[in-house]
């Protein structure tokens, strides 16, 4: 209503696969107040919609100088939401509890500063309870390093959830952390080698 999009077409994904946003300095500027308002509303929705987390966070990076291309990308998210108003989180009842953490990153997805964005999520059996998407603070020199940073933040969150659950009266012993294993293995081997020598 606020953004005159109530009769928009539905679209099945929040972002195009070839979507690549940069600062787009030559593009035409759009109203910054309106763009910020749109991002604010979308950020509010990310509290219950993990599926738009990445795309909203990506669009949010261009708030200081929004251009036509950014506004188009943000509006695409609205179109996506239009078609998916019925989805939500689902918490099944009476199943056993176990926690799994997942982490991934986007292979230096940001072409402006060459940083990767890490994404993590945590499932308690089949209930999704936590998710995040954040551009890493430093430039990773290898894919393994980027993976490692993502796995690190995932691990921190796992520990927090574990502590919280122990307050609820539930003690978990093992929390699997899932990521692409090949690169990390290499780091671990190297560390082991360093340790042995």
């Amino acid at each position: 209503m606020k953004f005159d999009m109530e009769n928009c077409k539905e679209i099945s994904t929040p972002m195009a696969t070839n979507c690549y946003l940069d600062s787009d300095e030559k593009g035409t500027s759009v109203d910054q107040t309106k763009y910020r308002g749109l991002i604010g509303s979308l950020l509010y929705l990310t509290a219950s919609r993990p599926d738009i987390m990445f795309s909203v966070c990506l669009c949010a990076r261009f708030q200081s100088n929004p251009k036509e291309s950014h506004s188009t990308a943000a509006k695409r998210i609205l179109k996506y939401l239009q078609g998916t108003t019925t989805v939500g989180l689902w918490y099944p009842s009476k199943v056993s509890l176990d926690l799994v953490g997942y982490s991934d990153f986007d292979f230096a997805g940001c072409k402006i500063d060459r940083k990767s964005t890490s994404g993590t999520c945590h499932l308690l059996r089949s209930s999704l309870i936590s998710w995040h998407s954040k551009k890493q603070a430093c430039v990773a020199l290898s894919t393994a390093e980027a993976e490692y940073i993502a796995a690190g933040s995932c691990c921190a969150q796992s520990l927090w959830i574990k502590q919280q659950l122990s307050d609820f009266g539930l003690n978990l012993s093992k929390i699997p952390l899932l990521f692409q294993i090949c690169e990390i293995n290499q780091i671990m081997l190297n560390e082991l080698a360093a340790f042995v020598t």
Partner: protein
Amino acid sequence: MFKNKLDEHGVIVRNKARLVAKGYNQEEGIDYGETYAPVARLEVVRLLLAYACMNGFKLHQMDVKSVFLNGYIDEEAYVCQPPGFEDHKHSDYVFKLKKALYDLKQAPRQWYERLSNFFLSHAYERGKIDKTLYIKKALNDIILVQVYVDDIIFGSTNQKLCE
């Protein structure tokens, strides 16, 4: 301060009025000390929801009306008479505050303080890292209370504990 509440079609459904203090005139050290107050993370609410579903216990929710008016303030604070409600005989008088008002810098903290004292005096324990979670254990039952400023979610493995 006046505010109109709108429904989803932009129609005014309720008018709200609230007396607020001018918090921007307060000076640190004189009018207020600490202003920090913990707020629950959103993940914790989801975690509690998932946990309650899995164990099959009911969660209840309630919210506190005009929360910040409930806190007591430790500092001496004065407000001038609100416009429109002046006392004509004593128009140069000011009010001394006993309880918090909205927009006072210490209001959220004082509210947290008061609620926290209430729970602790009723044999609740505070969560180890999450200071907005209160737990009481009795034999095999547990009652969990999660506070998100003025919204309170609570549930127990034993219905009777929820009072």
